């Protein structure tokens, strides 16, 4: 991409009004979209003057120093995290440090359901002249696709909650497109109950349409619960443990409402 095109793209992004804020922090990744590491590198790519970028996910804050569209390094992590890469300037001449920075960011927020950023004035970091590595350069080194197309909502929901599901049967237009875990019970439900249930439920709703997440607490053997997520031509039958209910609902709300 030429510099002119890159500049035009940045201006278009800055002019867009679809940013979401959470208690003053800007949401840069939601339900895994874009991938958290790609979202971080995009923020670095948007940072021209030196700034401290405070990334926050699930109670963990990662402070980065970025300047000139380059990541200079990881300033600090709270709660305190022991890692040699914290406080180190990034340089292509030290690939071990660059990889360690990737591994730390991936560990702390690679699977983040929601990632936010706040921009602050910079703090002293490294030596003058240690410029770090450009966001585009890091995307190559870390194999992160900065231009990744957003995933469809159902895929975002299923990806963001994969660890909350005991098992999953994902069906699109009647065809199984993905499964995980032990799906024997889900398959039986799909074959023997789903069609009648959806018909009856739709009738009870007097035609209410659109995305739906239906949860049935304790509807499976051994205390497990069942859920049906419906969006356009996708239907996902899910088995989950009750303690995952809140997480699933929060995620659904963020993606579909």
């Amino acid at each position, binding site marked *: 991409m030429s510099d002119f095109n890159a500049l035009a793209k940045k201006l278009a992004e800055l002019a867009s009004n679809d940013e979401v804020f959470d208690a003053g922090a800007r949401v840069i990744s939601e339900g895994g979209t874009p991938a958290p590491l790609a979202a971080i590198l995009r923020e670095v790519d948007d940072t021209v003057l030196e700034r401290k970028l405070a990334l926050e996910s699930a109670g963990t804050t990662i402070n980065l120093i970025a300047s000139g569209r380059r990541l200079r390094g990881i300033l600090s992590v709270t709660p305190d995290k022991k890692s040699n890469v914290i406080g180190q300037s990034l340089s292509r001449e030290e690939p071990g440090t660059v990889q360690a920075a990737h591994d730390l960011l991936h560990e702390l927020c690679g699977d983040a359901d929601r990632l936010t950023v706040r921009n602050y004035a910079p703090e002293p970091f490294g030596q003058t002249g240690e410029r770090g590595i450009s966001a585009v350069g890091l995307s190559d080194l870390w194999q992160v696709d900065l231009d990744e197309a957003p995933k469809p909502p159902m895929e975002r929901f299923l990806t963001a909650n994969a660890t909350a599901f005991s098992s999953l049967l994902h069906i699109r237009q009647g065809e199984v497109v993905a499964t995980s875990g032990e799906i024997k019970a889900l398959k039986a439900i799909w074959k023997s109950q789903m069609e009648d249930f959806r018909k009856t439920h739709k009738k009870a709703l007097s035609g209410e349409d659109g995305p739906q997440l*239906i949860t049935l607490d304790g509807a499976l053997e051994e205390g497990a619960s069942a859920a049906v997520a419906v969006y356009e031509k996708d239907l996902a039958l899910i088995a989950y443990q009750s303690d995952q209910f809140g997480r699933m609902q929060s995620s659904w709300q963020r993606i579909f409402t």
Partner: protein
Amino acid sequence: MVGSELDALRNKFSGCRALAFADLSTKMILITDSDSNLRREALDALCGEATVLFGAKGKPALGERQSNAACVASPSAFRAFVRAADEPNDVLCCICDPKVDAAAFVTEARACVDRISRGA
């Protein structure tokens, strides 16, 4: 007493729009919270949805066992249907804003329907 339980639950959650206590055996809404302005047809539909979600005659509509709490989240509303632990025909039907804290609400709704059902 039932009315005040419903009002207390509704007041606790600003995202709660309406509450109705129903008897599934007769498929009737017995009482709503005092601020509820749902029409009869809407109340019947709510009770009808509860019947569909929980199944009938001990047979689940979906799943291997009858559920004790069913929720339907859509972009326009979050509806929760919670059965009393001791009397499964006693059901609290709830309509909330789509962004209500679903887990916290269902926990409180369970406690509420249990208190109502026991006549505490």
